[in-house]
């Protein structure tokens, strides 16, 4: 089978799994779990193979499929991997089986529907990542909404309905703006070809005039910024995270939030380079505000899930900073930071789910000295905490360090030319690292150390299944931390192309 066919198989396997689930009777819960796990495992193998086969030195798309879908509109089924999405596809596929395995005990009601929704969201997320056609992208982008709505709303906590409606209504508002902008982009601008086309390649080459770009970029950016989320559009996130079941939180933190940053990277910036250049100071400022504000809020939370939720806002601020830095280092750092945050935050949410299963509370003050009560758990938790802080040898360090290097790389020459703002912002972002260490270590101190205290004692330490899940995540965290070179090589060419595109946009903006 050719590699393009494998990419299609990767995308459509969950749909096949959905059909399989539909045939299983509702009370065959074990069968449902096994089938879902098998599908996600095969996806992981496929994604791993594609990652290995992906040649980072080649420009452009690899393993691409192009088929007409709605011919009259120039809409195609157009998918492929490039340096920007290949790592995120791998991340999505990596988290898939872990989520399925990790969600086992928490879900007791409507098991079949739950697994169907997991497969559905896996399909939608992969589709969003590998779509190379704006219409297709939008369809997948919106399709992610429905399963998440149900996952939070059916299996969530007490305020689940409020949280899920807030999540959907926030996200859908952005989507409506994006829809308006994309219709305008394709149908209202003079098209050079005989037919309009939604293909990214086509749209990259035919950018609208700089004035129009600003409006369209603003619409896309609001949509993506809600998803990331960037302060001040973040208020749905803590609610959604806290109320979501463990699997929902892991998917949300692990992959869904990255869709926002990926959207900026894949669409917002390259489709409207001049506008992106114009708005770069604003994006940088908001990114740094997100880093600092998210960290400050994480500091004062008493709900353990909320601490990680706010830390996500802070960590994704780095991604935005890296994207806005317009340096190869910063862009690559942003991609690594996305992957790293997916692993670390996903892992932390899984661990919080594990302890919640045992103690049924998320209140930090109910806990203490877990290191004595759950030694194995505590070791894993400490490793992930340090990775979240960005300790060298962990993936968090690679991502944050590269982003900050990239930001300073860009800021220093500008400072020498008399623009101090980028340097001040970059320096403030470093402060975020300090704050990050503060809230995470303080959290770990109160959670793991001190006098042993936890409800529902005695507690059973991690079982073998849980240990395997966490071991996989920790292994990936160290792999990226110790030897990121292979992954960086996959993204370098794409980052260069990307930088060239943005600098071209800058030229266009200056010409105006």
């Amino acid at each position, binding site marked *: 089978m050719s590699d393009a066919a494998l990419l299609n198989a990767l995308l459509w396997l969950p749909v096949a799994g959905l059909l399989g689930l539909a045939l299983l009777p509702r009370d065959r819960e074990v069968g449902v779990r096994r089938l879902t796990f098998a599908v996600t495992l095969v996806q992981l193998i496929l994604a791993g193979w594609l990652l290995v086969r992906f040649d980072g030195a080649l420009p452009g798309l690899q393993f691409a499929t192009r088929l007409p879908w709605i*011919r009259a509109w120039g809409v195609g089924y157009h998918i492929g991997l490039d340096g920007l999405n290949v790592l995120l596809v791998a991340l999505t596929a990596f988290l898939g089986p872990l989520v399925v395995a990790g969600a086992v005990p928490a879900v007791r009601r409507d098991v079949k529907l739950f697994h169907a929704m997991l497969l559905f969201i896996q399909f939608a997320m992969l589709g969003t990542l590998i779509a190379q056609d704006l219409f297709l992208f939008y*369809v997948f982008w919106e*399709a992610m909404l429905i399963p998440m709505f149900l996952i939070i709303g059916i299996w969530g906590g007490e305020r689940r309905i409020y949280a899920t*409606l807030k999540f959907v209504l926030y996200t859908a508002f952005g989507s*409506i703006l994006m829809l308006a902008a994309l219709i305008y982009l394709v149908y*209202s601008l003079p098209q050079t070809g005989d037919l309009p086309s939604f293909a990214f390649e086509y749209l990259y080459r035919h950018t609208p005039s700089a004035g129009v770009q600003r409006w369209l970029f603003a619409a896309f950016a609001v949509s993506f910024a809600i998803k990331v989320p960037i302060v001040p559009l973040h208020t749905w996130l803590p609610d959604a995270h806290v109320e979501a079941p463990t699997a929902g939180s892991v998917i949300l933190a692990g992959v869904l939030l990255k869709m926002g940053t990926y959207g900026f990277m894949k669409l917002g910036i390259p489709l409207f380079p001049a506008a992106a250049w114009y708005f770069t100071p604003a994006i940088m400022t908001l990114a740094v505000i997100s880093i600092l504000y998210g960290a400050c809020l994480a500091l004062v939370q008493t709900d353990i899930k909320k601490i990680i939720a706010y830390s996500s806002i802070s960590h994704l601020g780095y991604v935005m900073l890296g994207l806005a830095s317009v340096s190869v280092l910063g862009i690559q750092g942003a991609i690594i930071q996305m992957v790293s945050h997916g692993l670390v935050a996903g892992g932390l949410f899984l661990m919080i789910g594990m302890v919640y299963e045992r103690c049924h509370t998320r209140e930090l003050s109910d806990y203490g000295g877990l290191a004595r009560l759950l030694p194995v758990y505590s070791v894993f938790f400490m490793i992930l905490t340090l990775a979240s802080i960005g300790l060298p040898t962990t993936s968090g360090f690679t991502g944050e360090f590269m982003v900050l290097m990239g930001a300073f790389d860009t800021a220093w020459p500008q400072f020498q030319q008399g623009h101090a703002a980028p340097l001040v912002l970059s320096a403030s972002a470093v402060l975020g690292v300090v704050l990050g260490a503060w809230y995470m270590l303080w959290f770990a101190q109160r959670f793991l150390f001190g006098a042993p205290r936890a409800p529902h004692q005695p507690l059973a330490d991690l079982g073998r299944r849980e240990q395997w899940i966490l071991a996989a995540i920790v292994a990936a965290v160290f792999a990226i931390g110790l030897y990121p070179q292979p992954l960086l090589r996959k993204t370098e060419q794409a980052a260069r192309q990307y930088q060239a595109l943005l600098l071209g946009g800058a030229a266009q903006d200056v010409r105006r």
Partner: protein
Amino acid sequence: MSWPAILIAMLPEHLLLGGIVALLALEIANERCPGAFALALVATAAAAIAAFCLHVTGYAAAPFPGHYAVAPSASLAKFLLLAFAVPVLLLSRDEFSQSRYFALLLSSLYGACLLVSSASFLTLFLGLEIMSLPVYALVLIAFQRPDSAEAALKYLVLGGTATATFLLGTSFLYGACGTLGIDAFARALGTADPLAATGAALIVAALFLKAAVVPLHAWAPDAYEAASVPVTAYMAVIVKAGVLLAALQLFGSAPVPPAAAALIALLPLASMLWGNIAAIRQASFRRMIAYSSIAHAGYLYFAFLGAGPGRYQTIMFYLAAYGVMTLLAFTALPGAGDDAAQDRLQSFEGLFHRRPYAALAIAASMLSLAGLPPLPGFVAKFLVFRNVVAGGHTAWAVLGLLASYLGLYFYLRVIQLMFMQSPANQPQPTHARRLAWVAAVCCLLPAIAIAIAPGWLLDRL
């Protein structure tokens, strides 16, 4: 006028008429009339097949020149209307067995078919009236609630107002242009002649009233709530489609002049806004669907802002997607003790745990009506706004999209009730509704086809 042309061109109508006559004869012969349902179903299906064949063969004729003309596009519209009637008939089986019910339904369909082939205001008027008059009776025929009579009367009076407005507009137009051909309408829209412009505006107002566009919508929630399930489905889908297709006949594919564009855009926009907002507060499913259909009338009329062949395509596609998904919701409605209990949104609580497939069908329908991909409603919504943007009305398109965003909430609320609430504790007697499942499959298959291959359908419109 040649007899073979009349015979072939009007074949769908003739088949319906045959059905109506047979049903009436049956009514006279036997009060209990066991075969009425089968007869009506066969007549409708045959008419639908005839319309489809006329479309496929590309048959075009004008058996009554200047009054009645058949073109492939009209045949397709007829097929759409008749095909929608099949699930409605299947739904009717459980609630009605008298042949007079089916005779009324088929008469209304006859009017709808006449409507899409009309070439003059006279035929158009006949079609509108033949379509509407039986529906007043159909609302009343269920008579399961004390307020049915009131709602039917309200509907009748407002429908009569629409008729009068339409006739007044037609006479103005006739006075200004000296012709009853429907192409006078498109010309009148653009002229500065006050008489002709007033005539055109009155006709538009009548069509707005018939399709329940704000502020002429007040009859719809009452009538939808008071009628029985199949009649509500009929009004929400087929009557609405008939009126929109009539509007399509009038507007043709000519661009709307700027002065008229404000009228065409403003009231539908108000319709979307108010329909979507008022639907939030409803406790009755059919009332909610009424407000939803008010909003959808808004989207449909919005499509007229665009010009050219895209307009026909948009209206047809939208009606197909909207009709199929609305009918799907009606076919999957949970059965309950009495009509009022069945209608309460509360009875949806925990539906997923009682009847998962029905809940999934209703959920798909709601999400499609909300316009979320990958469901057919999304492509339909996309088409409408694409047309509006391509017509140069970007600001209206943005406002319309924002109005459509407001609609998301109440559709999601239905899903929330079905999936996220524990089942209501009241005993749930359920009817045997075997045919409803057949009807659901009739809706589901085209819905899936439209969702997977919208391009295939678009190429054929």
